[in-house]
């Protein structure tokens, strides 16, 4: 575990180093790429709380990622077109202020997670996987059939949303914003994991029957974990829309849920920095193998198979072992 902590510090070091190098060598593309890693890492950190630490295999986290993205896109779209969003029961216009958008995204993602969690956590195992998938697919098809916001073609926003006294269009500045959120959600996750609440949800993953027998209301614990997890992933969706200045139904599709799950599994389930490492590995593969073949995901599949067979605890555990041998 100590070795993993050292490795985590190296990860942080690279998170600061890469964009600085991109800035110095005037390669904004690498800053944007690292920003994408950070945002997808946030989504993975969110899912990791539910999947990795509490054993809730959600195959519907795209719902939260997409909701965060669409809320950001829609608010921004209305603000930029100076259109009212709705006039009843009260007049509401959009907003292109991140400080307005983020709280709305957080509240709505939490609310959606509360509804999905309340209904789906009555099931377990494969039924839980299917019900969370079904919710996300419902939202996906709803987004496709909603022409006001682009339907299948998606929704473009012309400018990145703004933050007071900050130029969010600058890649490095936007990267710093995303990095702030990443460090905050990792900090929150660490606090949760080490708390008595964290003890309860990690115990549920291992033996829910025992946890019930000591009087702990496991449904409430799981629901709260699911809500926190969904909220974090929703926030990632918001940042993702701002990064691309575009949102489309594809982020609500089951493939997105699968990708977030892949980040967690690749990096290491129930490891604080695992999803970030997984997301980085995924993006590096996409960029390198993707330049040779369109079907680069064939190789991703092969890597996943090998990992699950030989390095089940994820990439981080691989480094942990290597470092241990070097000692």
């Amino acid at each position, binding site marked *: 575990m100590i070795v993993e902590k050292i490795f985590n510090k190296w990860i942080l070091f690279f998170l600061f180093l890469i964009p600085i190098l991109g800035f110095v060598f005037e390669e904004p593309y690498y800053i944007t790429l690292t920003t994408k890693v950070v945002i997808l890492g946030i989504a993975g950190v969110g899912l990791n709380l539910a999947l990795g630490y509490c054993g809730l295999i959600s195959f519907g986290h795209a719902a939260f990622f997409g909701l965060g993205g669409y809320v950001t896109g829609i608010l921004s779209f209305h603000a930029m077109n100076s259109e009212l969003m709705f006039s009843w029961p009260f007049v509401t216009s959009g907003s292109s202020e991140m400080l307005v958008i983020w709280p709305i995204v957080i509240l709505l993602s939490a609310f959606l997670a509360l509804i999905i969690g309340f209904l789906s956590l009555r099931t377990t195992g494969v039924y839980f996987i299917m019900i969370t998938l079904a919710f996300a697919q419902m939202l996906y098809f709803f987004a496709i059939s909603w022409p006001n916001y682009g339907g299948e073609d998606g929704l473009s926003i012309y400018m990145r949303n703004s933050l007071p006294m900050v130029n969010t269009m600058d890649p490095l500045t936007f990267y710093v914003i995303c990095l702030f959120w990443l460090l905050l959600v990792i900090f929150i996750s660490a606090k949760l994991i*080490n*708390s008595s609440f964290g003890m*309860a949800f990690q115990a549920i993953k291992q*033996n829910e*029957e025992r946890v019930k*027998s000591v009087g702990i*209301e496991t449904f409430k614990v799981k629901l709260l974990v699911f809500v926190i997890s969904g909220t974090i992933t929703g926030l990632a969706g918001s940042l993702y829309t701002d990064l691309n200045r575009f949102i489309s139904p594809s982020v609500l599709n089951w493939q997105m849920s699968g990708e977030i799950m892949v980040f967690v599994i690749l990096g290491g389930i129930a490891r604080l920095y695992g999803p970030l490492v997984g997301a980085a590995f995924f993006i590096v593969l996409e960029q390198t193998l993707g330049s040779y073949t369109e079907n680069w995901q064939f190789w991703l599949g092969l890597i996943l198979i090998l990992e699950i067979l030989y390095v089940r605890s994820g990439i981080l555990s691989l480094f942990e072992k290597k470092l241990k041998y070097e000692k």
Partner: protein
Amino acid sequence: MKNKILNIKSLSKSYGAFKVTDEITIDLHFDEIHALIGPNGAGKSTLIKQIVGSVKHDIGSIILDQEDITDLTDIERAKIGISRTFQVSSIIPQFSAIDNIILSLLDKSNKTFQLFKSVKNNKELYLNAKIILKEIELLEKRDISASDLSHGDRRKLEVGLALAMDPKVFLFDEPMAGLDENGTKMMINLFKKIKSNSPILLIEHDMEAVFALADRVSVINYGKIVATGTVDEIRKNELVRDVYLGYEI
């Protein structure tokens, strides 16, 4: 009625045509250890599951400390004072022994939903957990992962988890199974000590331990209580000797 803390009336459970428990009426007095014995498959563990609420009974009622708990969930029953051990050790394998005990202390100390305060810094929880670990002679092994404990130590930890809840009644399902002589002695002394605070309904196959501990014994066979009495009465009961004890005891 007043000296009964747990009163079970006509509790029945069937799986199809097979009656696992058949109109079981049994009670537990204050300050008492009431042993429940019988052959394997007689329905002892199913009865425990029905009392704790993890298996829903078909008919019957359960009164705990003059409160009808028949319709409460398993978690609600645990909260109001029913604490159990499992027939097969059911602990949190990746937690250390002390963390297992702390988990059991969380609900009682209203700490389950403490979201951001590190549990490692909670001195009160650790102190209470250490007291329990000392009782079950696992203090020295407190930092060992539960999955690495021996079978006997896991049985002790099971009992420790139940103790930590400070319940109104204990339901112990074969707590001494697989323990060595010292472990069994420790359990017998511990049970004698704790029964005045929280009486015990004890399922156990170790007849020496049962006879050393029990104030009353009930015998269950094919889901029915066939006899209830003191240790001497049960030992002399012909029917009990036929169905379970045999004639060598």
